């Protein structure tokens, strides 16, 4: 076995350890803190009983409102909270292994079904955003590198820095105000995945509706990596243009176009692929902030809402996906990196 295989094997073996460490941490936090499903249920029962009592003295009503111990036990059993934290965690983990994520408290559906139904939406926006950022950043970076230290370079640098200074979700908000709010223009819808009357629309109306709903979130996704990607592209191309092999190519008498776009470009694109792992995470898990801002019912919004509603099985379920995608994504992108760039040798 060569060094690289052992290196990646070792990293793969580290995944379960990391996975268990993180999920256990979150599980324990969720179990220890107040405000869990039991408290929520208690609150609901209390409210209901108070309503029935109607008009009775508040103080005496509160004193009487102790939920019977047997009912508490039942509640705890229902939510699997009657076990100690390690035992409960072990049961939960065993469930995950068998792909049984439990039932959502809010949706009263199996968690896996909820997550699977949200996945395609996040992937849709994530994929388009990812490709759009390549389509924008690579040409921009290349043209900046070719015109290094010119007026064009400075002007686009300002654009890039502004992009770096504005987070993606803020860009979405600004665009929504300017293009969809009605105060200035009213051409794009204010968030959502599709219009409500989607089912009644014709084929072309559906396409245009979908595109309209896609525009703003995708710009938000692109903004996220815009500055880093463009500057990375520019710097790596500049690095390569100063390298000896480019000098040789020029000496052979090749045209500048050929040297830049065939010889230097191929090597300059390598650093950009390093981000694939991170992009994968974004692709599948969506971005909390953009999905909340644009009201896209994807994974990000699901996990956000589950935290707010204390829907523990869904919180843990989305966490499982998030962590697994991230861990495998990192390794995956390193593998790709090692594959396209033979100079990279992991694990010495």
């Amino acid at each position, binding site marked *: 076995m060569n060094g690289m295989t052992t290196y990646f094997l070792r990293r793969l073996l580290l995944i379960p350890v990391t996975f268990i460490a993180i999920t256990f941490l979150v599980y324990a936090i969720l179990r220890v803190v107040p405000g869990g499903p039991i408290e929520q249920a208690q609150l609901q029962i209390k409210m209901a009983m108070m309503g029935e009592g109607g008009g009775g003295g508040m103080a005496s009503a509160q004193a009487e409102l102790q939920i019977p111990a047997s009912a508490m036990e039942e509640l705890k059993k229902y939510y699997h909270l009657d076990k100690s934290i390690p035992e409960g965690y072990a049961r939960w983990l065993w469930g995950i292994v068998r792909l049984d994520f439990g039932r959502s408290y809010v949706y009263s559906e199996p968690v896996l079904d909820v997550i699977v139904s949200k996945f395609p939406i996040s992937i849709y926006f994530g994929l388009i955003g990812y490709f759009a950022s390549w389509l924008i950043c690579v040409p921009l970076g290349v043209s900046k590198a070719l015109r290094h230290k010119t007026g064009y370079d400075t002007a686009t640098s300002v654009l890039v820095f*502004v992009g770096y200074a504005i987070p993606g979700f803020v860009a979405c908000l600004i665009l929504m105000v300017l293009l969809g709010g009605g105060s200035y223009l009213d051409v794009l819808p204010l968030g959502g995945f599709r219009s409500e009357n989607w089912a009644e629309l014709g084929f072309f109306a559906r396409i245009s509706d979908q595109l309209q709903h896609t525009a703003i979130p995708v710009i938000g996704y692109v903004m996220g990596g815009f500055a880093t990607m463009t500057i990375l592209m520019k710097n790596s191309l500049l690095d390569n243009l100063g390298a000896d092999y480019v000098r040789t190519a020029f000496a052979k008498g090749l045209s500048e176009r050929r040297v830049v776009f065939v010889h230097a470009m191929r090597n300059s694109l390598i650093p950009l692929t390093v981000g694939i792992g991170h992009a994968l995470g974004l692709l599948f898990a969506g971005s909390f902030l953009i999905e909340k801002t644009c009201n896209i019912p994807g994974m990000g919004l699901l996990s956000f809402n589950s*935290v707010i509603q204390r829907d523990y099985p869904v919180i843990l379920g989305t966490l499982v996906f998030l962590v697994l995608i991230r861990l495998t994504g990192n390794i995956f992108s390193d593998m790709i990196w090692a594959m396209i760039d033979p100079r990279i040798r992991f694990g010495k």
Partner: protein
Amino acid sequence: MTAMIKLIEAALLFAAGYLFTHRALPWLYVKAGERLGFDMKLAPHWEKRIARFKTIKRGYYSFLIVTTLFVMSLFLEFMVNNKPLFIRYNSTVAFPAAAEWLDGLLFFKAPRPMDRKADYGQIGDDQVDYRLFAAARRDPAVFDEQLKTLAGELDAIRAQLVKKPGPKATAEERQDYQDLQDIVPAIEADMKTLSDAKAVFAAGKASVLMPVYPYSPREHLLDMPGRPPHRPGASHLLGTDDSGADVFAQLVYGFRISMSFALIVSFTGYVIGIIVGGVMGYFGGWTDILIQRFIEIWSSIPFLFMMIIIAAIIQPTFLLLVSLIVLLQGWVGISYYIRGEFYREKSRDYVHAAVAMGASEWSVMMKHILPNSLVPLVTFAPFNVVGTIGSLVSLDYLGFGMPVGTPSWGALLDQGMKYLKYYPHLILTPSIAMAVTLFMVVMIGEAVREAFDPKVFSRLR
């Protein structure tokens, strides 16, 4: 006209802030250092780097502006506040703005009791309305107007009192009549207060100096015409939010909170990162491997997700938020940089020399290696600040950041979402404030990077 005066005042304040930040403070720093016996001369290579930084105009000017604004923002209570710098009424003299500033500074001390209206010739028992006081100081007609309304009320009540309840009146009607009768002396007392105050003002025994922008970010202006939020206007530069708090005041206080938050987080993150990374790089071997594995696990915790879970459970305070962000995110990136630097530096001759002279491990790390590994830290700092402010704004936007009521950009954005169609200023103003601030910080970062770590690209064509 008043707008011109305000503008000139603001410009003068900025000039004073600049002189204080970039002339007085450095001078004081050097003098104090010399007095304490330190050599305050910079090492020549640092002098060269700073000179190079100064030649990059966009970055240098951004640096001057941002630092000046930040230092000024530490004294915001004197510039943007609903409390006056100085107030005198009869023999009472007070400095409410300074008191508030001190209360913020000495947060462990019980705050000063508020100034009551009764002590300043105003009707009521709550906090003095300093703006009304200032208005009366400018134009005593304010009193006449108030007196006129009160007199009108009194007349109306007297007119009602003429009709006494007959013998057949119910108990309720008698009670109403009694109540009306009781109001009369109260109104008369108010009128006496007002006319007394008018006399004091006329005798020139009252004076007040309001801040340039006389509104506070935590003050709910509910007596304005219409219902909040208000659009930007003459008295409120950028309008108000839906609780009637002035947006401009919130933005500038939000600037102070965001910047100090980011600076504190970056600094603490640096300290932890330097120690952890230094230990990893300097000792190497198993220590390095173990800590690396730990960091690998730690950094795979989804940051925002974790923050939200924790913040949903415990309402965070400023300090808790700082420690959470530092612990979860702030130190990891830096520790990798430092690890690499220490790894490289520890085999240099000067380190061997220090070890041979019997320097302790700690002093080798902190006194000898660290000063030689500072460049990546310094160049990284502005981008660190940008990232931290971004995190804070996101958390505030999601509602899991600073306690409710703290002036913040993120909370304003969240409100703006609700009123997106009708009050676009609630989104646009904080976005622009944030974009301009962060843009300038990025410019500083770019310039620092170029000055400290210059890279010359050569290319053939």
